[in-house]
């Protein structure tokens, strides 16, 4: 690989990381919030797909993509609230409910989304951060969507808030030990309900990014499991919002690797390069897991670690 080729691939991976990571980031932050409160919501894939559909439909009907993003978030709140409300009942398994809601959200999105496959909806515009460069490819790579920037900001705020605010402490306590939270007078069910609903909002916004920015259209095959991969990403990021951001970037870059290598002529073994994000997940999981201790940073109340 010559220097031009290498820089092309690196640039493509940077561009890919910026373009592809946003839905991962939003779903991961949403899931991080929910899991910090001690509950797992596997239904975020369904929320993501429904959010994508809702955002596209609203953007088409009203002509305002940002309204679409907001409505996608609201539908996410509904799905999150549904999950939160059902899981409050005694003897309900949150993982099973999550899978049910994932199928429900996807199916509902296909049902309502039928008539929005053909029309072209107005999309989110981007912010040009690459105008300092004369290279059009660099300019294109640094064309970022405001949602990406909002996502970074949100990751920092969440990271700070978990450590330094009373609200963060309440969520962490609820997630680490329900009896302790009860003793402190915290309404555990309410905290989890709200955390799941807020997490749903973020996942819905992530879906809006898929349909309104990149790839930027509504089709039934739009999500290729981003919602599910983001759930794995939270574990891999050790429930740390800042690490979620890093992990999302890494997944985005890995996804861009296959096409980028083929574009500079390294095309042998593209199946392997296309599988890079999945291989990476496996490798990191294997490297970071030890049978001798539980996962560092895992909330104590999570049904998978309890």
């Amino acid at each position, binding site marked *: 690989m010559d220097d031009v080729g290498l820089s092309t691939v690196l640039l493509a991976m940077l561009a890919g990381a910026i373009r592809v990571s946003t839905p991962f980031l939003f779903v991961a932050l949403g899931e991080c919030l929910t899991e910090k409160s001690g509950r797992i919501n596997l239904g975020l894939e369904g929320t993501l797909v429904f959010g994508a559909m809702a955002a596209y439909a609203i953007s088409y009907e009203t002509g305002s993509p940002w309204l679409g993003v907001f409505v996608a978030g609201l539908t996410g709140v509904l799905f999150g609230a549904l999950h939160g409300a059902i899981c409050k009942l005694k003897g309900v398994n949150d993982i099973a409910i999550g899978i049910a809601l994932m199928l429900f959200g996807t199916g509902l999105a296909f049902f309502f989304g039928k008539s929005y*496959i*053909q029309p072209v909806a107005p999309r989110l515009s981007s912010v040009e951060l690459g105008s300092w460069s004369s290279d059009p490819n660099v300019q294109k790579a640094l064309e970022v969507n405001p949602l990406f920037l909002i996502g970074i900001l949100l990751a920092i705020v969440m990271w700070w808030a978990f450590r330094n605010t009373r609200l963060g402490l309440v969520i962490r306590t609820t997630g680490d030990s329900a009896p302790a939270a009860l003793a402190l007078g915290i309404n555990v069910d309410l905290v989890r309900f709200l955390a799941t609903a807020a997490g749903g909002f973020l996942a819905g916004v992530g879906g809006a990014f898929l349909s309104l920015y990149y790839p930027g259209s509504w089709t039934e095959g739009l999500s290729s499991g981003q919602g599910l991969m983001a759930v794995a990403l939270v574990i891999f990021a050790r429930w740390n919002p800042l690490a979620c951001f890093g992990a999302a970037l890494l997944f985005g870059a890995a996804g861009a690797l296959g096409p980028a290598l*083929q574009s500079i002529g390294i095309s042998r073994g593209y199946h392997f390069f296309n599988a890079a994000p999945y291989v990476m997940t496996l490798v990191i999981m294997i490297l970071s897991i030890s049978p001798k201790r539980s996962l560092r940073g895992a909330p104590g109340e999570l049904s998978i670690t309890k």
Partner: protein
Amino acid sequence: MLHSMINRRALLKGTGAGALALGSGLMSLPARAAGLTIGILYVGPRDDFGWNQAHAVAAAALKEVPDVTVVEEENVPETISVAQSMESMISLDGANLIFATSFGYYNPFMVDMAKKYPDVQFRHAAPLWVDGDPTNAGSYFGQLDQAHYVDGIAAGLCTKTNKLGFVAAKPIGTVLRNINSFAMGVKKVNPAATVQVIFTGEWSMPVREAEAANALVDAGCDVLTCHVDGPKVVIETAEGRGVMSCGHNASQAPLAPKGFITGAEYKWETIYKDYAAKLAAGEALPNFIGGGFDLDFVQNTPYGAAATPEAIAAADTARADVKAGKPIFVGPLKKQDGSVLVAEGASLDNYAPELNGTDYLIEGVVGSIT
């Protein structure tokens, strides 16, 4: 008061008309059963801007034919659902002819149904029928690579960077043949140009298709085309990056008002209407039929804004040539590995059987199939 009276009258009139229509509808049921009922099964949504839409457009044209009723079912997976859907079309809707439009519908589902219902005709949209299969079953297919060749002619004359990009799903025969034919068109009018291929590995993977399209534009390609299930993302990404595009399967012209050149489309309408006419006349349907421009089974999307007059003229000529049987693969022609595919002075017929098993890319195509 007067207002509400009128409203009530209008309402009564409307209800009466509705009841009448309902009654006549019920009475006309036996009459409708005497006509032709055609069932169509799709593997995905009818409006995917791709394979399924190409069939759905033809089904819509079929609905215009008098005495023909069309029943459709979308998103039928290639499982036992195929048989269930066909049975319900036959027993509940009285279907006389069934079009199965996805590759995996054929065996065992369609073959079994054909054995179970010998009075119903079954036709499948891929060249899978062989002697010994039920005679009330059959295959029909369009040779889309001929239309991709014409795309290549137009694209080769429109490109300024002499680099063209092809986003392909999987390296199977049909896909490789389309890439090769597109490249033959490009090379014929512009020997200096190359076609660069990126395989996504999946029939439908929008994010990776968008990544592939972006990577090709980054590599300098100024015309993109594709062979994936739903070309919507590739065409829209090309338009967004300000490069030109050629379509695939159905018309994507509305997606690229600035950069669209032309596209390779199926014209299933020809086959479907022909079958309907044959059945209405009591004639037998062919068991195996395939064709391209010669039989009007494929077509090119009307030229878009990016097609230059020169490209339009050359593409029109090329289409007429292929229609008249002039070969696409003309020697001297080498494969990517340098081995000779067609010797100098020789050529491959457009329906040459060896083209069906294409497992190579021709010289001038950049990209690897493994």
